[in-house]
């Protein structure tokens, strides 16, 4: 089952990639879509298997596919680790991927290289699955780089466009910075734990709390160093502040790619990474603080930029970045379950929004600028309705998916009761307001008001085919219901004995004192089981049964639990902000459309700051890119051309050619010359021995006999 779920996309990629020409575009589409749908069904089956087994501890096992490296203490194998975390990720990846695959049939119908596109999509899916199912860091790294490669290929898919190529390169280079951190993190882990297999690392990280790593003479807390390095990788891949500049540019890729890779799955790999390493992060509070700060700032900054952009896809891209920020500060306050919850709901509604945007772009003859849209809602009603669902979910309106996940994230942040938790909460609230604002700004500018497109484009506007709307409807179902249905499992505690639960925590704290011993869930589970044996059936759908040991939270860090008991205003604040945001957008873009222009002129500096994306690109360009080019030119001219080339390729290679020429002159073809060379060599070797030999030899009797036989050779030696 799990093998099929992971390897079906690989097989599809190989078939479509190698025999793509032979089976044609239709064949490629059929093969890849079938494979991914099968993979999606398998993951869903796994999910239900797990749900069915919650009482027995869920589904936790590892399937070893192949031994990979076995060298001394360093053992790594290709394997598939199945636990709740990986099953959830597999479901998200495969379902969204299946939707996007099918959607692409319609969206890419005018593209000449459909087969290649489908093959890349499948490759990406496979790499992503390798990432989430790995049971060691090396395979994780393999998947990590694999999704990077697939992302690079897909961003630059329209490789005739210069902007697409440079965006692909930018994504690759920026990610390299993060990947470097991840690679260092893996090495540091091996250094500290002596293994990179999850089972060994997570076995008992508490033992390593006091370990330090010495870097240039300073001792650092080992777990913090590891966690920060891993987080560096996550920052790159999940486009957090600092390494985020590639994500908006990545919108150069086809829209299905943006939906799959740059909204639903790949960018969440960082969130997954941190959640997977929750046992380590729990013992590195400093790292958690850094994660929270980064997440909160990202959520805020990205939202401000999102308010001012005009490209429909860029708005959603900044929204993605902002939502990723939410997930990270949730991770930072140890609310891993909440982060995963938001990851899942976000995957549905953001993919939906992207596919909806794609549908709009498709309808508007590849127009992406919202200033050239407007007034098309009657012409594409299905897309319009679906975009509404996505927007409601994103803004967090009650009973849509985003409502549950965003609220629990914000509540957990508030419940953390630290300065950075509070900061995250307030920045998150501000971002929630802006989220609602820019989402409705998008809706209003795109669908309402006067048509601003040319007559020709407007006459072309048409609803998308069923291959495109179908997958969107599937995602819309997810965007509506996934929040309500999975709330209990991902973050819920069984409400009716919430008090007992708190007691259980306290008792487990007492049991283990301050020695950082057992992670909560294990102890909680045993206590809870003892206490509520009779009620077991009712209380299974809670996070401690759901996550089992996949996520580890120390009792004193358990903010999700605390989040259920926060004041009323904390709970209702996000919703209030969302309503305000929508009203504001309505006011500005429908009622009094000339306000925005005035606001822009009166707040010129701030608008510029937001519109120019806080000048990140400009700053990076001046500091890194220009200097890198300058440095590169120095090395190129003086280092490479004048030094290495002169000595290396041009020098040695030229010399080799001359030697070869000289040697072949020897090969004259005349037998007597060959014989001469042989004889000369023979004489030379004999002389060598004779000259080199101990002079006392020549006086010995042996020498007498020798001279008798070989004539004059030794005589020369005598003269010597």
């Amino acid at each position: 089952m799990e093998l099929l779920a992971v390897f079906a996309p690989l097989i599809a990629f190989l078939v479509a990639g190698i025999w793509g020409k032979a089976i044609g575009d239709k064949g490629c589409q059929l093969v890849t879509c079938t494979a991914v749908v099968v993979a999606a069904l398998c993951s869903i089956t796994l999910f239900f298997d797990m749900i069915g087994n919650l009482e027995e501890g869920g589904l936790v096992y590892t399937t070893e596919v192949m031994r990979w490296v076995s060298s001394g203490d360093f053992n790594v194998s290709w394997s598939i680790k199945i636990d709740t975390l990986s099953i959830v990720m597999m479901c998200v990846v495969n379902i969204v991927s299946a939707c996007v695959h099918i959607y692409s049939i319609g969206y890419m119908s005018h593209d000449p290289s459909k087969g290649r596109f489908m093959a890349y999509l499948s490759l990406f899916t496979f790499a992503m699955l390798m990432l989430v199912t790995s049971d060691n860091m090396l395979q994780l790294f393999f998947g990590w780089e694999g999704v990077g490669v697939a992302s690079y290929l897909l961003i630059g898919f329209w490789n005739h466009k210069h902007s697409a190529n440079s965006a692909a390169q930018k994504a690759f280079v920026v990610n390299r910075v993060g990947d470097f951190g991840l690679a260092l993190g893996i090495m540091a882990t091996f250094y500290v734990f002596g293994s990179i297999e999850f089972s060994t690392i997570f076995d008992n990280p508490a033992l390593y709390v006091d370990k330090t790593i010495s870097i240039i003479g300073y001792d650092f807390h080992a777990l913090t160093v590891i966690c920060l390095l891993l987080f560096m990788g996550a920052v790159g891949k999940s486009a957090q502040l600092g390494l985020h500049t590639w994500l908006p540019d990545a919108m150069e890729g086809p829209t299905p790619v943006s939906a799959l890779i740059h909204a639903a799955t790949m960018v969440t790999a960082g969130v997954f990474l941190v959640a997977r390493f929750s046992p380590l992060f729990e013992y590195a509070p400093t790292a958690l603080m850094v994660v929270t700060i980064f997440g909160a700032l990202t959520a805020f900054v990205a939202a401000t930029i999102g308010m001012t952009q005009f490209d429909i896809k860029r708005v959603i891209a900044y929204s993605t970045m902002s939502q990723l920020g939410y997930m990270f500060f949730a991770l930072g306050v140890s609310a891993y379950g909440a982060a995963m919850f938001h990851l899942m709901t976000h995957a549905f509604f953001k993919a939906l929004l992207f596919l909806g945007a794609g549908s709009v772009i498709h309808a508007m003859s590849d127009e992406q600028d919202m200033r050239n849209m407007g007034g098309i809602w009657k012409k594409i009603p299905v897309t319009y309705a679906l975009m509404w669902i996505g927007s409601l979910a994103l803004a967090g309106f009650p009973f849509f998916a985003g409502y549950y996940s965003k609220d629990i994230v914000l509540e957990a942040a508030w419940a953390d009761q630290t300065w950075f938790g509070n900061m995250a909460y307030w920045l998150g609230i501000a971002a929630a307001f802006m989220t609602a604002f820019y989402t409705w700004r998008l809706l209003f500018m795109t669908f309402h008001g006067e048509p601003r497109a040319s007559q020709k484009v407007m006459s072309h506007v048409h609803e998308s085919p069923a291959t495109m709307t179908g997958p969107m409807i599937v995602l819309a179902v997810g965007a509506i219901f996934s929040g309500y249905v999975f709330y209990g499992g991902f973050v819920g505690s069984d409400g009716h004995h919430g008090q007992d639960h708190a007691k259980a925590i306290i008792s487990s704290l007492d049991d283990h004192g301050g020695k950082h011993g057992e992670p909560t869930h294990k102890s909680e589970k045993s206590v809870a089981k003892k206490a509520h044996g009779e009620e077991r059936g009712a209380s299974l759908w809670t996070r401690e049964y759901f996550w089992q040991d996949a996520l580890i939270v120390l009792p004193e860090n358990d903010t999700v639990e605390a989040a259920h008991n926060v004041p009323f205003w904390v709970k209702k604040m996000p919703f209030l902000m969302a309503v305000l945001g929508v009203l504001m957008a309505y006011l500005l873009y429908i009622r009094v459309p000339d306000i925005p222009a005035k606001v822009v002129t009166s707040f010129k500096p701030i608008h510029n700051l937001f519109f120019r994306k806080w000048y990140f690109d400009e700053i990076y360009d001046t500091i890194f890119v220009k200097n890198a080019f300058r440095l590169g030119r120095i090395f190129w001219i003086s280092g490479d051309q004048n030094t290495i080339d002169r000595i290396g390729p041009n020098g040695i290679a030229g010399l080799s050619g001359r030697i070869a020429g000289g040697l072949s002159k020897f090969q004259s073809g005349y037998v007597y010359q060959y014989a001469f060379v042989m004889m000369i060599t023979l004489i030379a070797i004999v002389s060598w021995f004779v000259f080199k030999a101990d002079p006392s030899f020549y006086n010995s009797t042996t020498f007498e006999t020798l001279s008798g036989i070989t004539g004059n050779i030794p005589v020369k030696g005598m003269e010597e």
Partner: protein
Amino acid sequence: MNDFDIVPLVPEIFMAMMGMGFLLVGVLQGNRATSVLIWASCVMLFITAVLTMNFDWDRPPTMNAMFILDEFAGSMKLIILLGLIASLALSNEYLQQERIARFEYPVIMIFAGIGMMLMVSATNMLSLYMALELQSLSLYVLAAFYRNSLKSAEAASKYFILGALSSGMLLFGISLIYGYSGSIDFATIKTSISGLEQIPPGFIVGMVFLLAGLAFKISAVPFHMWTPDVYQGAPSSVTAFFAIVPKVAAMGLLMRLCLDVFEPATEQWQQILYFLAVASLIVGSFAAIAQDNLKRLMAYSSIGNMGYILIGLVVASPEGAGAVLYFLLIYVFMTAGVFAIILTMRRDGLATVSIGDLAGLSQNNPILAYAMAILMFSLSGIPPLAGFFGKLFIFRAAIEQEFYILAVIGLLASVVAAYYYLRIVKVMFFDEPADKFDNIMGFERRAVLLISTAFVIGYIFAPSLVFDFAMSAVSSLFL
């Protein structure tokens, strides 16, 4: 001493009887029988291999101490038989195409084979010389097998003249050794010099001559000069045979002489072989760069490979000797594969051997091009292909015995050699396609090519199999 046990000789006797039987069949049936005879020879050689394997490989010298079947000889014989089968299989189709399919071909090859089998079993200077000459004479004839071609005749006469010269050196060396040790029996020679404080200079001179004669056979520089000319002039199938088998036999002989018989004089012969190894590495890698003819290129390639093998011999340790055997086996496979491709290169019914003719092969015949690319990568020593491990173990043995300079020279030579191997890959994959080859590739060639590429690729999955074989083979030399 008067042990006249004939049993260890049964494989050779069987071969000789069958060879003569084939000769009779050929005389009666004429050239029509060639193809059948080649097939029959392959089967016969296979039976011989089975026979050889079934004998106990741990026997004392027999036939008045003329002949021995020990671990080493047995293993070498298997490699020789393997090479013989491969080159015979490769020949069949080629001989038909070139219209030189005469029945003597397999018969002569069998006799050459007997010579080689006896060479690696020789424990006496006399049997050594007899075996060597049986082999050499057969090879001279084979080189001239393309009777109507001036080039073939020229190659054969060059080979013959220079071969005779080297035989002369060899004999002169043997006589000197006899003069100083009083015997032509290997064991006696060894005892006569072991324990001596100084090896008599006369003995050393004799050894120099003897080794020079053998260096000619393995075409070590500077006794290599015949090689490119003969490889180029001889029919391609014969070239394949030359490149694959006689090297193995001559190297086996050299190993027995150096590591066993002349063991007390190790310090002296090391100097000689050191020089030969370095010279072979340099010439083998550099001279090949200027070649356009694939057969000449393979000649230099084999010279270079002999250089690596000599490194393994020079270090005079069990590991080194094991690495030599190991390298030889891998070399046999790789060379057989390359020649299977070279023999397939025909355009409009005519054989072509220039590198330029391979241009664009990746488009005209991708399977052939990929097979060739894999073999070339392996020859240039790129992991994880078999050729890499051959070099790896040679260098490792050299490092262990602290022959650092030799290992470095070997490494550098392999860098240079990579150039001309990879050039072929470049021509096949990146140059403007030349005209297509005639698409004929018989069963035998396919089989040889398939087995050799499969070996080269699949080797990494069971490396210890080959390695254990090599290590147990050389164990009998280091008693």
